[in-house]
């Protein structure tokens, strides 16, 4: 068709589009084009900012237990409750401790994984490692936690198998270690994917050089690879720490209500006690806590791979 028509349809469509574009966005405004291109993304993220402002408003209103409505006047009563009630301190401490432990364990397992994946000569092995990483990453938290319930539950596979050899069933879920374990499994793909680019950036020749100067592999890891991989560790560490600090699904499913994290406490305020004010207060304090953790890590160790940079030509 296009061979016979002198002026194909696509050209005519493009011409109309160009005309419309030139009419509403003339050449003289070309300098502002980048901002126009950024506008949709900025507006979308603006929804989150609006949400934060709305939460700030709710957090300053207390719940009237007679009418179950939020008060008209502002007060700091919710913040006072959030910092004085012992329950919230227990939950906050449990989440923070978990974040630290999960980060440490995840990084220890993620590093060998990322190292092998980046350094292996076999492209088949690399692909297998990548698939083993992406498959759970793309399956989602709920299904994965469900898988753990089948394996570790009271009538789960492990207990059934133990029963076959005469060992009485053990309680393997609904406790703190189970939540930690589930979180490590959830975080591994994140950590490996943040570490791998940092490892790719380390030239293999450096390790060979360390080896030819007489360092065994442990020493060349300790003095060459690990220090050079530091930006990757910081990036991965910050991501894993903030994600596990604020997680909801793993404590809810593998903790069975007895191991609530901060996010679960916030959810309960909204959907169990219906205290929107206190819930919003806790949510804002979690946002602040997350930012403090990130800020602390960045000021102690630098921004690592998360530093914003743009390659200039």
């Amino acid at each position, binding site marked *: 068709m296009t061979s016979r028509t002198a002026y194909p349809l696509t050209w005519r469509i493009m011409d109309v589009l160009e005309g419309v574009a030139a009419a509403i966005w003339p050449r003289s405004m070309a300098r502002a084009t980048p901002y126009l291109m950024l506008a949709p993304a900025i507006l979308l993220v603006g929804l989150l900012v609006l949400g934060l402002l709305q939460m700030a408003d709710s957090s300053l209103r207390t719940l009237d237990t007679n009418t179950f409505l939020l008060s008209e006047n502002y007060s700091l009563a919710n913040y006072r409750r959030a910092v004085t009630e012992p329950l919230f301190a227990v939950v906050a401490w449990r989440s923070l401790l978990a974040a630290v432990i999960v980060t440490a364990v995840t990084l220890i397992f993620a590093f060998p994984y990322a190292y092998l994946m980046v350094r292996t000569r076999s492209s088949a092995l690399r692909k297998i490692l990548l698939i083993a990483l*992406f498959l759970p990453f793309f399956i989602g938290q709920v299904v994965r936690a469900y898988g753990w319930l089948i394996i570790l539950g009271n009538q*789960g596979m492990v207990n059934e198998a133990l029963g076959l050899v005469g060992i009485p069933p053990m309680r393997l879920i609904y406790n703190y270690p189970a939540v930690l374990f589930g979180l490590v499994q959830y975080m591994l793909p994140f950590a490996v994917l943040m570490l791998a680019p940092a490892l790719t950036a380390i030239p293999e020749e450096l390790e060979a050089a360390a080896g030819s100067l007489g360092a065994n*592999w442990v020493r060349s890891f300790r003095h060459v690879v690990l220090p050079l991989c530091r930006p990757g560790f910081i990036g991965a560490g910050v991501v894993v720490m903030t994600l596990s600090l*604020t997680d909801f699904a793993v404590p809810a499913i593998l903790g069975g209500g007895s191991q609530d994290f901060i996010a679960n406490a916030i*959810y309960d305020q909204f959907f169990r006690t219906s205290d929107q004010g206190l819930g919003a207060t806790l949510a804002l304090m979690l*946002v602040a806590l997350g930012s403090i953790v990130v800020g602390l890590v960045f000021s102690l160790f630098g921004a690592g791979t998360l530093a914003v940079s743009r390659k200039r030509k």
Partner: protein
Amino acid sequence: MREPLSKKLVLWAFVLVAIVTLSAPTIVVLGASFTAGNIITFPPDGLSLKWYAAISQASDLRNAFLRTLWVAAVCTVVAIPAGTLAGIALAKYAVRFERTIQTYLLLPFTIPLIGSGIGLMLIFGQAGILGQLWPVGVAVCVINLPFMIWAVTASAAGLDPDLELAAANCGAPPLQVFFFVTLPAVMPGVITGSLLMFILALNEFLVSLLLTDARIVTLPVQIYNSIRSIITPDLAAISVVFIACSGLAIVLLDRLVGLEIFLKSK
């Protein structure tokens, strides 16, 4: 250069533990979905497809799955233009307040999901659109948007400003330059980004939990709500849908851009 045996052993010990831990839930869910018994036991009672037959009859599960697909579609359709344009703008132009804009666009990652979800729930509630499905798609798009922007900026190395200038020099007006030169150059990033957005939206749990009510639950929320009671194999069968989608996404990603793209250093 030969690797020392001790290094191999230590590395592989960690990697094997990691692989088993990563894959165990997937394999077990797959296995449990084919069981012939009414509860999940070990060793299994035998093989059957009866739980797949059961879920194909369950209209609540099918509807929940269709709603999830719709949410993921809305999310991806919104994310592609917004993320692509923003990614190109950040990679190509030296905009003012660049650091500030980049930090701002990372807000969906720095604000905890529960915070974002509650905030969106409050403003959607005020706007009177809570209880509809499309706002869930928009919300899921917002919280994952940095993935889309990141994917596009990462592929902007293929973007050569000289090519765009050459096209303009040959008389191509701005939109033609954009659609025939700029966009094809960042296409691998757009594909990676939209696949990520779609699959993450399909799995999104917490934000869906906050923004949906009993009438419009998405599949992950439906599964979560059913987990509370006794563990039955029909949940495993429906979970296999997610495993299949995940596998499909990996194959597509590998075919279209190659999984190794995630190993590249910046």
